[in-house]
């Protein structure tokens, strides 16, 4: 509680959430960030599942889209943290928000698993079933992260 209260009263946090221009900029950065993050991850997962970008190897596609996945993650995390900070005490016991964060962390873990294994899967005659399952779980995790994200204001009224 002490930390949340301190964060919420931090001069920069108060300033950045205090005017229309800065507050709406945070939202714009958050949307653009997660569009890049989820869009890049989804294309990668669909490629591993065998339903996208078949003319390119999965490794080639990974080299192309993963930098944008990480860029999107950084943008969404920084803007998201600053929006969270302005209502930190309210998010402290907000279980919907906590679940969204757990889903997001799981999504990042699965993205790392996909990225690390793609060159290995590519060397096999066909992408193995377990790889397709991992990609499907990754895709579902990000869709679930968005669902829990929109549920935060819808179910708890915060944000």
């Amino acid at each position, binding site marked *: 509680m002490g930390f949340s209260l301190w964060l919420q009263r931090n001069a920069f946090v108060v300033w950045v959430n205090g005017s*229309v221009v800065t507050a*709406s900029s945070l*939202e*714009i950065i958050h*949307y*653009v960030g*997660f*569009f*890049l*993050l*989820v*869009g*890049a991850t*989804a*294309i990668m997962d*669909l*490629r591993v599942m065998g339903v*996208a*970008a078949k*003319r*390119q190897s999965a490794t*080639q*596609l990974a*080299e*192309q*889209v993963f*930098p*944008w996945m990480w860029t*999107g993650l950084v943008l969404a995390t920084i803007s998201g943290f600053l929006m969270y900070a302005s209502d930190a005490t309210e998010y402290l016991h907000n279980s919907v928000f906590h679940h969204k964060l757990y889903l997001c962390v799981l999504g990042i873990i699965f993205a790392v698993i996909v990225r690390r294994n793609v060159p290995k899967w590519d060397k096999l005659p066909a992408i193995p079933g377990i790889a397709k399952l991992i990609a499907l779980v990754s895709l579902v995790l*990000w*869709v679930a992260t*968005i*669902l829990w*994200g*929109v*549920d935060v204001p*819808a*179910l708890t009224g915060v944000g």
Partner: protein
Amino acid sequence: MHQFIISFARWVQSTHLGVGILESTWAFPYVQLTHFTGLSLFIGTNLALDLRMMGIGNKNQTAAQLSDSVFAWNWVGFVIAITGGFMLFSTAALTYVANPSFDVKLSMLIPTALIVHIFNQQKVRTWGQTPETPGIAKLAGLVELLLWLSVVSAAVLIPYFAAEP
């Protein structure tokens, strides 16, 4: 034209679709989910291609290859996004058409961005053959990138422009 838009909005809002989403306790977040999932696929891949046209990002593959790889899901994302978007609109159509930010987004920004997007998808096949893209491709990528950022900005600003009750 204005009268037509108002009566269309009134009709959409009164349909089973609009009323159903609004009266349901669980439908609204799923409609938002549809819109945002579609946008992630559509805008996410648009921005990646725009940036590649601008010469930013991994250059092991050409812009033409990237465009080819994402093409099908790019448009699947677009269809998902407008489906979700139309359902969101149907819950409060009259309020939306009276909102200046929504009007600018739908009547100007989205059509312009879409035209530039389709143009770029065609042109990238010739511009994007080499690892380094020509200056005109960089400019076209930047223009499209800025247009999509304007679309997102106008969307975010809709609640800020909501008329006082």
